């Protein structure tokens, strides 16, 4: 499944300062769809290069990270249960506090 992953607000520092990642993710064994839960685990293994605790806490993203699936907060689509489809754009962004 072709997906675009984007990291921002400092999260790109966890993946070699690269903000946009065009990736190809296979369906997990025996699964009919790819959910955000699967994708987070995949990202943790394949994209995050350092300090994974700055990205994940438990099986979800750490506090202060917004997840957007096709420009829409994943809270509105079922968080970890959100089903991902071909060509989806998933954005992970850390909230900023500076000013």
């Amino acid at each position, binding site marked *: 499944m072709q997906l675009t992953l984007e990291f*921002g607000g400092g999260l790109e520092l966890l993946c070699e300062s690269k903000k946009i990642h065009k990736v190809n993710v296979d369906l997990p064994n025996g699964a009919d769809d790819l959910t955000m839960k699967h994708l987070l685990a995949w990202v943790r293994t394949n994209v995050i290069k350092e300090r994974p605790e700055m990205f994940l806490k438990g099986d979800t993203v750490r506090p202060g990270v917004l997840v957007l699936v096709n420009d829409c907060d994943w809270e509105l689509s079922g968080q970890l249960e959100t089903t991902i489809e071909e060509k989806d754009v998933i954005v992970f962004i850390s*909230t900023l506090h500076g*000013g």
Partner: protein
Amino acid sequence: MEANGGDSSEIVRELEELKLRKAEIEHRISTLEAKLHETAAVERLDAAVSNGYSSPAAIEHGLDHGLSPDQIYRYSRQLLLPSFGVEAQSNLLKSSVLVIGAGGLGSPALLYLAACGVGRLGIIDHDVVELNNMHRQIIHTEAFIGHPKVKSAASACRSVNSTIKIDEHVEALRTSNALEILSQYDIIVDATDNPPSRYMISDCCVLLGKPLVSGAALGMEGQLTVYNHNGGPCYRCLFPTPPPTSACQRCSDSGVLGVVPGVIGCLQALETIKLASMVGEPLSERMLLFDALSARIRIVKIRGRSSQCTVCGDNSSFDKHQFKNFDYEDFTQFPLFAGSLKLLPKESRISSEEFKEILQKKERHILLDVRPSHHYKIVSLPDSLNIPLANLESRLNELTSVLKEKEDVNAETGPCTSLYVVCRRGNDSQRAVQYLRESGFDSAKDIIGGLEAWAADVNPNFPTY
């Protein structure tokens, strides 16, 4: 060259003195001008009241929207806009806005809000203008370096528009004064730079039912949204749990390109103007993400108000009393003001003067500098070991071996080696010492106030940044 050196320092001193006097005179002029306008306005109002009219100038000219001829001329380009017009301008003139923070975001926000004719503009900030602010905090001028940002910003706003009312709050926003101050305004602009302030301001806006225009910027990125507006979410709906402190950076620590908060601050002014004048679609339940390097602006849909929210949710019992007693620094594990973190007991800390004595007495010690390596490259104390706080855990063995080396060399000469930890301002050094003590380095102490204190109290020639 001795004489020349003396001359130039004399000139510099006189220049400083003159600049200060100039700033004071300019401030006095703008205060008097504002006062004159107010007095004139009151006189007009008195005349109107005695005649039973609301706005004599307006009535005299047959105008029922309340704008005076001067106001019509000043704001004409906004009045000419079909989607804005005289009604929106009139709403704007009747509105009041509080901008919290006169820094990178607040600078352009304040200038535009003053210029466009917000009726009453409040500014709150506890800080003073510094040279390293100037690249982004464009409301301030060099003449105000060392003076309160609020005074400087108010003076700039008055010089742009002497006809609006400007309130100066030269103080820090705290739970003890927030309710009282925020309650005086219709719209709140969050232009602060730290998580505890952001939670505190959002909670206070929920309690008072005020819309909150929230902006943030760091490095090359910015974010903007409107909270607590028309049934939309509050800050806590989006971020119920504070992020780890390692994910919270200030511009003064991580750097920022000046124009980035400038862009977000302008957009904050825009959203505020829309709310105050009641035009357009506010950026509620949506968030604008700005990436300056790739020239991308993304506007995303965010969740609505959460019924589970501990502050604005259906079953929330959060009230003004709880707000006043809520410890936002403890909640976020982040200081409200740079340099105010108090993590360690007194006996785990030493002052920069005490460290100077240790150096003079040649007491056996290791100085660990926990700043990021690119900071360390700018300037550092001699004979220090740099292990950034972020890598301390994984590089602990380096510290152990350096300590062991010292112990071996000095095995017969007196007490064990002390470990001192320094950073830029004395926050990370406390976190490092806390961690080191937990990891068995019982002698670890931090230098209070870090290298900034060293420069201020021991060596004035030591560069600060």
